[in-house]
Every structure is written in structure tokens, then in C-alpha cells.
């Protein structure tokens, strides 16, 4: 009886692990982690804009620009997965996707420049975030549908 209980516990732990770690190793997981890192930097910028203490904006935007420069190779053609939110349209409309990712990098650099040069940091950051939204709306699936 005890072994059955242990077996069930192991099986449920394995299932939980599978659910949590559902993305396969390789580019699909790596790009997910990259986007999470971008999200963390975006939150730093958002918090700075809220408080008006803008010092962290430049370094955070620089990290976003760096991450954006590494993103495209993590989308090899056909790298879909049931747990991935990447739409097939990414590869069907690759030049558009490539352009938006390039725009994110450019917008992030413009935010760095605004932060360093006393420009309109809020406007620059909002443009960058608007770029994230455009790309998500076109090329990302909802979490579930």
C-alpha cells in the first residue's frame, strides 16, 4: 500500500514538473526566457516612470536593446510547440517580424539616448512599449483560446 502511495506521489510530481517545464529545451525555451528578461527590464522602466526617478531607465533600456539583438536566431523556421505562443505567421511574414524586432532594438536605443541626453524619456519608452504590443498582437497567440 505504501509503495502505491509513493508511486502516486512520484507520478503527480512528475506531471507537475512536466506542466511547469513544458517548453522544450532549445530555442523555444530560450526565447521564452529572453522575453521574460525583457519583461523584467520593462517593469524597471515602468516603475521609474511612475515614481519619476528616471535613473534606472537608461540601463534597463540598454538591456532590452541587447536582448532584442539576440532574439531573431531563437525563432528558427517552424519552431512551434503546443505550449508555445508563437504564431505560424512569424515565418509566413518573416520580413514583417524581422522589421518589428529591429524596431524594438531601435526604440530601446532611442530610450537610452533620451535618458542620457535629457530627452522625453516617457515618450520614448511608450513608443518602445507600443512596439511590443504591435508585435504581440500580430505574432503571439493568447495564453489559451
Amino acid at each position, binding site marked *: 500500500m505504501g509503495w502505491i502511495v509513493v508511486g502516486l506521489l512520484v507520478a503527480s510530481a512528475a506531471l507537475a514538473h512536466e*506542466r*511547469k517545464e*513544458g*517548453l522544450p529545451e532549445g530555442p523555444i525555451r530560450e526565447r*521564452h526566457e529572453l522575453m521574460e528578461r525583457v*519583461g*523584467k527590464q*520593462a*517593469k524597471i*522602466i*515602468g*516603475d521609474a516612470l*511612475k515614481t519619476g526617478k528616471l535613473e534606472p531607465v537608461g540601463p534597463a533600456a540598454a538591456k532590452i536593446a541587447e536582448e532584442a539583438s539576440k532574439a531573431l536566431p531563437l525563432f528558427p523556421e517552424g519552431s512551434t510547440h*503546443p*505550449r*508555445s*505562443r508563437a504564431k505560424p505567421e512569424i515565418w509566413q511574414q518573416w520580413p514583417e517580424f524581422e522589421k518589428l524586432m529591429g524596431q524594438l532594438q531601435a526604440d530601446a536605443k532611442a530610450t537610452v539616448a533620451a535618458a542620457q541626453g535629457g530627452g522625453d524619456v516617457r515618450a520614448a519608452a511608450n513608443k518602445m*512599449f507600443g512596439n*511590443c*504590443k504591435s508585435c*504581440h*498582437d500580430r505574432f*503571439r*497567440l*493568447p*495564453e*489559451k*483560446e
Partner: protein
Amino acid sequence: MVARTWLLLQAAVVVAALGVRESNAMERGDAERGRTLFALAGGCGCHTAKDGPVGAGGGEVPTPFGKFYGTNITPDVETGIGTWSDEEIIAAIRDGVARGKGVESPAMPYYWYSGMTDADVRDLVAYLRTLPAVRKENRPHEGELPFARLAYRLWRTLFAPRFDRVRERPTDPIARGRYWVDHVSLCADCHTPRNFVGAIRFDLYLAGSLQGPGGDKVPNITPHETGIASWDEDDLVQLLRTGFTPEFDNVQGWMAEVVEGKGGGPGYRDAPEEELRAIARYLRTVKPIAHKIESERE
């Protein structure tokens, strides 16, 4: 004596006429205020197809009990609600009774709207009457049960929650936020899971659901660490205003539709900031519930 009686009679007629005018004005509602309510109601998106026109019906509502399509609520006299009286429209919104058809399906959340104040529901109706009339037949529901109206009546009797009608819109910000969340913006409808018969799980009030409207994953919005414990009031207002989370990820699916409105109509983002702030403030005060909503995609 006769002259005095005649004068009194005339005065009574004038007073009565003024009274009637005033009561009509009270009953009619204000379309401008109604537009704000429409925005706070997320643009009543079920009644608008993805590309509009606003209110002309056709929004898809897939449920475990069949796929429903929002009805035409524009003032078109043949296919919309152009010939309905205010009272009939209000009965459809708050009591779940559609003119000439009977009890509506639970896909129409009339039970939540039942708490809406008389003044607000009249303002909302006044706004609906300003929408451009669109001739568009209602699309029949798919996979509806046989004797559906009877089943809906039974569901209403057995499972529909009952709320006291709010007499006046609360002025206290938290109470006002609760009023929006429960009776107008209906955060509580989508973010509270249901059981196998579609009854609302009040033990998980606002704690999220994997089977929200449209099959969307709906996050826990209670101030628990599995919900929005790390969000402050400004974060919530930002989400309602722009659709951006604190990480500047943007919401998609149904939440994006209620924030942005559908078919060019207003959504949460068009509501006054003080009302969005009241929603945010209330959400920060609800009971925190541990309920992790695992995403099916990352």
C-alpha cells in the same frame, strides 16, 4: 368662490404637468452618462462582432453549453431593439427576460447586472438608443439544448446569484469599485470560476479560471501571491487604461477587447480615471485567495 376653485384647479394642472415632465426626465436617462457606463461595461462586447458595427450583435461566446452569439442591441426596428420600451430593455439587462422570448441564457450575465442602479441602467439604455441602427439578423445559438428556455428558467431559479439592487451609486471609492466590479464592469463574472452546471464559485471570487468566457485563461486578480499581490493601484489602472501589465506585456483575447472596446466603440480605456481607480482600489481589498492559474501556453 368659483373663481378661486378655478384658479386652484389650474394651479394643480400646472403642478401635475411639471411633475410629469420631471418624472419623464428622470426616467429617460442621459445618453452621455450612458456612454461612460457602456465604456465601464467593457463596451458590452458580446453584442459586437470582432469588426463591428458596435452593438449589432454577432460577438461569439463559446461555453460548455454551446456557442452563443450576442444579439443586436442597436435601435434597428426589425432586427434590433428599436421597438422595445425602456422597461423591456431594462428587463433584458437586469432580469434576464428577453421580450417575446422568455428567460435568457446564463451567457447573458443579467444576474450580475441585476444590482445596477435604476439611474445607471436608464442612462445605459439612453446611450443604446443613440447607437446607429444596423439591420442585422441575430445569429442562432449553436448546440443549444432542447427546451432551452425552460432550462434557462430552471437555471435562473436554481443557480443564478441574487443581488440586492444598489439604490444609489456609492460615493465611497472602495464601495464604488465593488459596484463596478460586480454590477457593471463585471470583472467578477469573467474572473470567478463556475462549476459544472455553470453556477458561480463564490468561494473563488475573482480568483481566476481556466475556462473563462471564450475558453480564455482568466487570471487570479485577488491580492494573493498567485494573483496580483505585487501589483499596486497604479499598475491596475494602467492595465485597465492601456492593456499593459507592470512588465509591459499586453493583454490579449477578451481582456484586450474590454479594454479597447470592439468595433470602434468605447471600452474601459475610455472610462474616467477615477472610476478605474475605484476598481483598482477595491480589487486591492478583496480576500486574497490561493489559486494558481497555469497557462496552457508560455
